[in-house]
């Protein structure tokens, strides 16, 4: 309990300093944000295909594509993170040592840094995306307070799931020279099975079966589909929320296992 209290006491300062760092690196930050705009490209492609008369892809018409991809852009902006590069760089340059010398778990200090960048991302990207969403497909957005509550929890779940998946990949840098190569493989799988590239409903049946059991859809497609009204029954939404948080627990545990095993091998390069 003492550790938890100490962590909670430190949190406001960690967030404040993290925000100060985000502001200091504002140019890099904006460039990084631009790398998450793939949904806008996909939006352009799919809406032009869907605008042809008689074209309908599963439940997706032109408006659904607009709502989906703008939703994907928002969720990706809120949940994306560069922690893989950060961990890799710190391991390679030996800078992880300073993090390890501090009496709060590095997962917490990494998380604080990355959470503190969320308000900046919202400030830059979200007004644009929200206006676009409501002006083109606003009627699809959920209004049921219960589902809005589930959406909020799913966004937190998506952030945690994505963040700790990336922390786990970053921690592999304690075993191999550079785990950013693993991240490239991960991004390929993520792009397809999370619904980032195309909505999962448009995948072949066998791929949809994989996507249903894999964690990736809970990082992106689940909150997006929830937000744009693809869930009609609260029970279904709650069931999938439960699965998402089960994945959150599993991935955090896996990240801790990889981290602990890796730290035993840490060589604190340099100096």
């Amino acid at each position, binding site marked *: 309990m003492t*550790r938890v209290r*100490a962590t909670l*006491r*430190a949190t*406001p*300062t*960690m967030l*404040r*300093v993290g925000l*100060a*760092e985000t502001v*200091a*690196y504002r140019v890099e930050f904006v460039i990084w944000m631009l790398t998450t705009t793939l949904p806008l490209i996909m939006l352009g492609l799919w809406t032009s295909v869907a605008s042809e008369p008689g074209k309908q892809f599963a439940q997706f018409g032109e408006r659904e594509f607009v709502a989906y991809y703008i939703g994907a852009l928002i969720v990706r902006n809120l949940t994306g993170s560069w922690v893989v590069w950060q961990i890799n760089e710190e391991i390679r340059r*030996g*800078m992880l*040592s*300073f993090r*390890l*010398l*501090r*009496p*709060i778990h590095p997962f917490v*200090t990494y998380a604080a840094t990355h959470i503190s960048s969320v308000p900046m991302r919202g400030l830059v990207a979200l007004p644009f995306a929200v206006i676009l969403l409501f002006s083109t497909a606003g009627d699809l957005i959920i209004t049921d307070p219960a589902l809005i509550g589930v959406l909020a929890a799913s966004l937190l779940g998506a952030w945690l799931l994505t963040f700790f998946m990336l922390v786990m990949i970053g921690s592999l840098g304690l075993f191999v020279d550079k785990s950013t190569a693993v991240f490239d493989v991960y991004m390929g799988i993520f792009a397809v099975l999370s619904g980032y590239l195309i909505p999962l409903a448009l995948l072949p049946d066998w791929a949809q079966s994989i996507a249903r059991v894999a964690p990736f859809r809970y990082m992106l497609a689940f909150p997006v589909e929830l937000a744009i009204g693809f869930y009609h029954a609260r029970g279904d939404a709650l069931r999938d929320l439960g699965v998402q948080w089960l994945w959150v627990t599993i991935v955090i545990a896996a990240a801790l296992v990889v981290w602990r095993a890796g*730290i*035993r091998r*840490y*060589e*604190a390069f*340099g*100096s």
Partner: protein
Amino acid sequence: MIRVDDLVKTFRVHRRPAGLGAAIRSIFHRKYEIVRAVAGVSFKIERGERVGFLGPNGAGKTTTLKVLSGLLHPTAGRVEVNGFEPRRRDPAFLKGITLVMGQKNQLLWDLPAAETYALNRALFDVPRDEYRETLDELSELLDLANLSTKPTRQLSLGERMKCELAAALLHRPRTLFLDEPTIGLDVSMQVAIREFIRSYNQRYEATVLLTSHYMQDVTALCPRVIVIDKGSLIYDGDLRALVRKVHPNKLVSFTMAGPIGPGELERLGEVVSSEAGRVVLRVPQDRLRDLVSHALANLPVVDLSVEDPPVEDIMRELFRPGSVPDAAAEAG
């Protein structure tokens, strides 16, 4: 208190020759070698001691410091610092130590040092009153005025090192592991950092284990030295005893008022240098008294000083290829 028993730390190192062919071969077949960075070192340091940790590059000093601070897990042996096993990195242990690495910095690069201080205050859970008091003290000792509000990247090396020390000591650790804390600093800054370390040690009865390639750091701060080479301990004890044992000679400098007869100097001892009325002789310790008496009585001496040989010479002698450190072992 620090206690190290038979510490061993090995690393698995990938080796390959230069060239494209070797690079391609290494994709399919990698050669690894086990390197023993620390090979069974034991020592004990009591609270409040200032100890110099000496050895040539690659001797295992920094590895040992990293094991002591919990960054590296020992391959074998037992390590205890302030009653804790460092590798477990218990928060109470981390709050009691600090590791300053002269070639690395923990300061947030694009933010003023004050932000790192604030972050460390929060992470180490230092009460605000105590934080302000410590920061005031450190600011005074290190002359930090106006430095803390400049972005780290705009500080000079010396300024940055002072801010590094402040950031590393805000939680008032009682054990300081200092790895080359004065590297790259000019002479006046080195003196300032040394004075600060001594003052911190005295004020908080802090234990200091210091590595430095600047022997002035060690001679000014550390009555005791631990010397390691190739991962093994070769001396642990009083610095002056080591100097006497390895180089049982003194350097005697004379300033002469006038010329002296040919051969006169050689009769007194080994002439190290002789120019413009200033002569330096190397003389065995047991002949020192006779020599000084003789010189004062028979030569036109206007000034005289007696010094130990520079510690650099001692180290060079100790680590000379083929030199078996028997003298060190005897002195220890």
